[in-house]
């Protein structure tokens, strides 16, 4: 297989570009999108590369159509992705729910910009954390990853595809305008160096008859893709294990939705990824996700120099959220600070996790600039 970009070496590229290259190495062969700042460069890179690897890149009429097209492509057997920013992500919410309900593996990238509405198109923000977790309607469960460097943008994209395929679920990647456009050195591995997960296909006719069952007991049904003679019916209505609509039976709905929760939550130890930095002996913890983590690492160093026993917890997975882990952390430290580029979204989750065991303070910043390390450090010193 020939790749339209160098592999097995480092390159100096933007976050958007890194996501596109990672997607191709993860096996993505279908991209549908609609231009929006700061995610357009993902689309432009995909447009350049996809035909060369016999994949599809298509500009749809809007974001609703883009996510619809990738769900269709996934049922036709392709690994598929779309990328957007806040306003487009809002438009995708109905079909994101459809992907949850029909257990369709897809990857949706949201390069966050300032909002609400068209807000600040070229400035970074973290205002879509709650939208990513709870934006669609009804009870639902999905996975949200959040990179903070261009290398992570690359690595997390590969992981997003693997998680999507493994758990038959939509995975959202939350980046931001800063990460989208910043250039950094990224190691682009050889394909052999990458672990690529493929979705579970039915092993028998029997399994294929239960596209929404649980034949393996792990909550993840094998996915009978179209055109294989299985004659699968897929609907966003509440359906039983066979895929038949059963909208007026409370037990059927409960069984389906609880399994969709369970297949993620039972594997949360594998799905949740976090990094700790000087946290073992910390008296003050800073909890971050995405771009702010970079300033926070520096802030921790500054604080340590000043004699404050600070440490950082960086959440690579925003959802599912490890509430128990935060509670343990809260028991260990005196205070938790949550710097984020919104008026308090991650803060709500951390406070719930802390469960009153430690004081949690929000360090909010909006307007389009990432916190400086000093801003964080000064708030901690008080």
């Amino acid at each position, binding site marked *: 297989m020939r790749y339209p970009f160098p592999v097995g070496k480092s390159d100096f590229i933007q976050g958007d570009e890194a996501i596109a290259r990672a997607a191709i190495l993860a096996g993505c062969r279908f991209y549908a999108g609609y231009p929006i700042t700061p995610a357009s460069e993902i689309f432009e890179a995909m447009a350049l590369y996809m035909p*060369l690897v016999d994949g599809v890149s298509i500009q749809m009429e809007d974001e609703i159509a883009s996510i619809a097209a990738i769900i269709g492509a996934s049922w*036709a*057997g*392709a690994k598929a992705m779309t990328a957007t920013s806040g306003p487009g992500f809002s438009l995708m919410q109905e079909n994101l729910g459809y992907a949850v309900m029909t257990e369709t593996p897809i990857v949706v990238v949201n390069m966050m910009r300032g909002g609400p509405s068209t807000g600040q198109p070229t400035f970074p923000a973290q205002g879509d954390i709650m939208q990513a977790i709870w934006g669609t309607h009804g009870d639902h469960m999905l996975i949200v990853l959040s990179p903070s460097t261009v290398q992570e943008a690359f690595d997390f994209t590969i992981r997003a595809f693997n998680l999507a395929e493994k758990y038959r679920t939509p995975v959202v990647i939350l980046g931001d305008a800063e990460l989208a456009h910043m250039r950094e050195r990224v190691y682009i591995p050889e394909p052999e160096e990458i672990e690529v997960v493929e979705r579970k296909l039915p092993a028998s006719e029997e399994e294929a008859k239960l596209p929404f069952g649980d034949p393996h007991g792990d909550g993840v049904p094998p996915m009978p893709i179209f*055109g294989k003679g299985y004659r699968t019916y897929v609907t966003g209505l509440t359906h039983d294990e066979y895929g*038949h609509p059963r909208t007026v039976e409370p037990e059927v709905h409960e069984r389906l939705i609880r399994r969709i929760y369970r297949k993620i939550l039972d594997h949360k130890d594998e799905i949740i990824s976090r990094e700790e930095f000087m946290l073992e002996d910390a008296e003050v913890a800073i909890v971050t996700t995405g771009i702010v983590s970079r300033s926070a690492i520096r802030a921790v160093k500054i604080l340590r120099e000043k004699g404050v026993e600070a440490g950082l917890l960086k959440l690579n997975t925003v959802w599912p959220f490890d509430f128990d882990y935060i509670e343990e952390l809260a028991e260990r430290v005196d205070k938790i600070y949550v710097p984020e580029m919104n008026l308090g979204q991650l803060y709500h989750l951390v406070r719930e996790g802390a469960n009153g065991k430690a004081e949690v303070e929000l360090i909010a910043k909006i307007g389009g600039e990432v916190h400086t390390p000093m801003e964080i450090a000064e708030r901690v010193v008080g």
Partner: protein
Amino acid sequence: MYLKSAYEIRDKYLRKDMLPTIFCPGCGIGSVLQFTLRAIDDLKLNQDEIVWVSGIGCSSRVPGFVNFDGLHTTHGRALAFATGIKLANPNLKIIAFMGDGDAAAIGGNHLIHAIRRNLDVTVILINNFTYGMTGGQVAPTALKGLRGTTAPYGQFENPFDIAQLAVSAGANYVARWTVFNYLQGINSIKKALQKEGFTLVEFLSPCPISFGRRNRMKTAPELIRWYQKITVPLAKAKKMKPEELEGKIVIGEFVDRDRPGLVREYQEYIKRAKKMMGWEQ
């Protein structure tokens, strides 16, 4: 054409475990479903290579009753989903079964863009002038004066002529019939299924329950008689003055052409890309 018994068609193509259907007595959707299955049967198409796609509405429940791969999606978005299925696996033939509200209101933008791209899909469109599933609100196809629960004093907006819209947007094949024109209907579906690119067959279909009741036509026969009254065959319409055609709906075959479909265009695009990058001669 030799007509097989309806039982034979039913046993061969319907999912027995999903029956009975949700359709009301006198509803035309079942007839159009039968036409479509007869066309598939007559053409001896491979059941495993056809995917049925739909949005939301009574018409959109059809893929659930047929024994094929099927994707019952969100309201109006069927053709956007279909774009992904078709481009990801061009070997699949796609039938989109849609309602008039689904296709032309919430899905209007997807419809015109799927046609513009010449997406390889056959749209079977149920036009009952109303939103059947939600109980009889006016659809964008409703002729002026027709009543719906959201226009209790009679529709005051202009209707969409979906077939004409499809012709103008560039479809390869467009025809419109009433459910009463079953032979023409089956033949049109057969033609549509054999063509590359975007094809659309629209059926004026009785919805006695949500639509007829509110417009003094409580039964399917009354609605069919009304359809006979308001429809004009294309050949005759060509000789009529615009004033005479006011309030009438033209039926017939509107276009039959062979522009390259989206799949073929994309495959050419891949070749062009590789050539431009010097990957291939």
